[in-house]
């Protein structure tokens, strides 16, 4: 199993998520220069993953949910999940992971 699937990530308090008009938007609360002007749009899959990231559910369980909910094969779901987590980490949206 990929390391990222064994880890449980939490949502950073520096990032607030809101659902408006069919969109899921992440708003960074602090930043510097142009970063603070940024907001991030999540698609349905991204929003589903974001809402699961509570620091207690590990990646493997979230991928199970993706496979069940979005009719995608496990290999694709794992790759998409890992890529999405990497993106979220790069914008400081996640807390340090715990291994479960």
């Amino acid at each position, binding site marked *: 199993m990929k390391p990222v699937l064994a880890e449980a990530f939490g949502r950073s308090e520096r990032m*607030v998520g809101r659902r*408006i*008009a*069919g969109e899921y938007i992440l*708003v960074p609360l602090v930043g510097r220069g*142009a970063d603070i*002007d940024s907001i991030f749009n999540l698609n349905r899959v991204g929003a589903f993953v974001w809402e699961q990231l509570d620091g207690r559910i590990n990646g493997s369980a979230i991928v199970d949910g993706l496979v069940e909910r979005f009719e995608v094969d496990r290999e694709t779901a794992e790759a998409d999940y890992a890529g999405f987590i990497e993106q979220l980490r790069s914008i400081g949206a996640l807390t340090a992971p715990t291994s479960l």
Partner: protein
Amino acid sequence: MAESKASLAFVRDFLTQGTLPPLPGGAPWEAAEGIAVAARQQGVAGLLHRALDSEGEAARPWPAEVKEALARDRRNALARGVRQLALAARVLDRLHRAGLRALPLKGAALLETLYDSEDHRTMADVDLLVLDDWPQARALLADDGFVECDRADHAAVLRDPDTGAVLELHHSVTSSPGLFPLDRDGLWSRSVPGPGQVPRLPSAEDLLVQLSLHAAFQHGLVLSLAQWLDFRRLFERRSLDPQRLLTASGAARAAAPLAAALEAARVVVEAPVPEWLRAGEARPARLQGRAPLDFVTPAAPDVARIRLALLRGRRLELLHRTLFTETPGEQASFLQRVGRGAARAARLARHWGPETLRGTVASAARGRPACGHVSGTPPLSPADGILPHLFRGFPFLRVTVTGDCMRPALAPGDRVRLVSREQRPPRVGDVVLARHPEGLRLHRLVWGPPLAWFGLRWRTQADRGAIWDPALEPEDVLGTVVEVEGSPGLRAIHGWLTSLRSLLRGLRSWVRLEPVE
């Protein structure tokens, strides 16, 4: 003008009815565009877009471009509102850890309880009321890098070094501090936990008193529709206890402003004021016969007369507290106080004199002076796109500087002439009129032509500011200052060196190599 009035009336109807009225026939595209502009100006673009998003049939005639523009407004309002509330929470926490009690005022005190989402009602800035040691609170925030941009007699205007957001740190709800006494312990003991980011909120009764003081005394009963909607939502979404309201209103000596504001809120947004509250006060005479939109910006408020009417029986005190304001922590001898009072009287006489009365009260309606704010004639509005048309119609526009951030190039009270971008293309070093999320600013262009390479967005900054303003699109720079009236050619308004210094100061603040001065 007629079209904008019709658009404003549409937005009001939408807010009072709770559903989307049909678009006027004839030219629906133009009508929809005008209504979107009005909703944006009135702070309810997010609510309008939510209605468009949820009401299928009524939304069908609306052009896709207008809907998309409103969706963008809504996303921006969400991001801004979330960050503003985070700022309020952060500062309240900072003060709390230092043993200082403080509570949010106005938008920050109600956004999370009276509205379903932060994008439904925009806030110009974040207002906090310090209940304990205001000078210490100010000093703490200065230590944290907040930059003081301006001072009013009841608040300091600070800029957050992290986000650039504007925070007003109040020691009084209104100007002329002491006129409406603060029951500090009572406010705190009646306050309640907040459901969202802001940890503690004023009680519903105190909130109503504060909103009324703000509406009636501070703004002469002319507010945006979002601000009037606050009253309606307060009655709809929070329960009010008559005895507690009586206590709160009595402690603040706010019975007359409360009655006037409630009457206006009933007229403007059909606020469901309970019978027990309506029976308490006679209908204020000055409000009778006025139309709803007379109470909505950009209508010109009659601030001086309304203040006199509200303070019947206390007019000498009004005069005294207006001229001889007391700022917590500032000691002044008798002679100093007299000198300041005389200077303030002269300023008021100048501003409220017959020639400038109209412009002054109009600017007061749009908000207190803040960092780099400007007022002007014809009235300037930050987001309505009117200014480019005005520039086309007049050889120049004249605005009055009310902030302190551009000294020594520009000082409060200076009247400057602006020309359009077409007449004088902006260049780095120019002082420009720029449209920012917080309103219009007369700040220096520190990044732009001829340096704006690689598609980098333009930047402005106050000469006395430590941080850059938010990034701008070129079209957000509306005009360039060409002259300070009364000192043609004498004052160095434009300057590469000043611009370079500002740019470097902003850069230093950005990378945090050393503390900001």
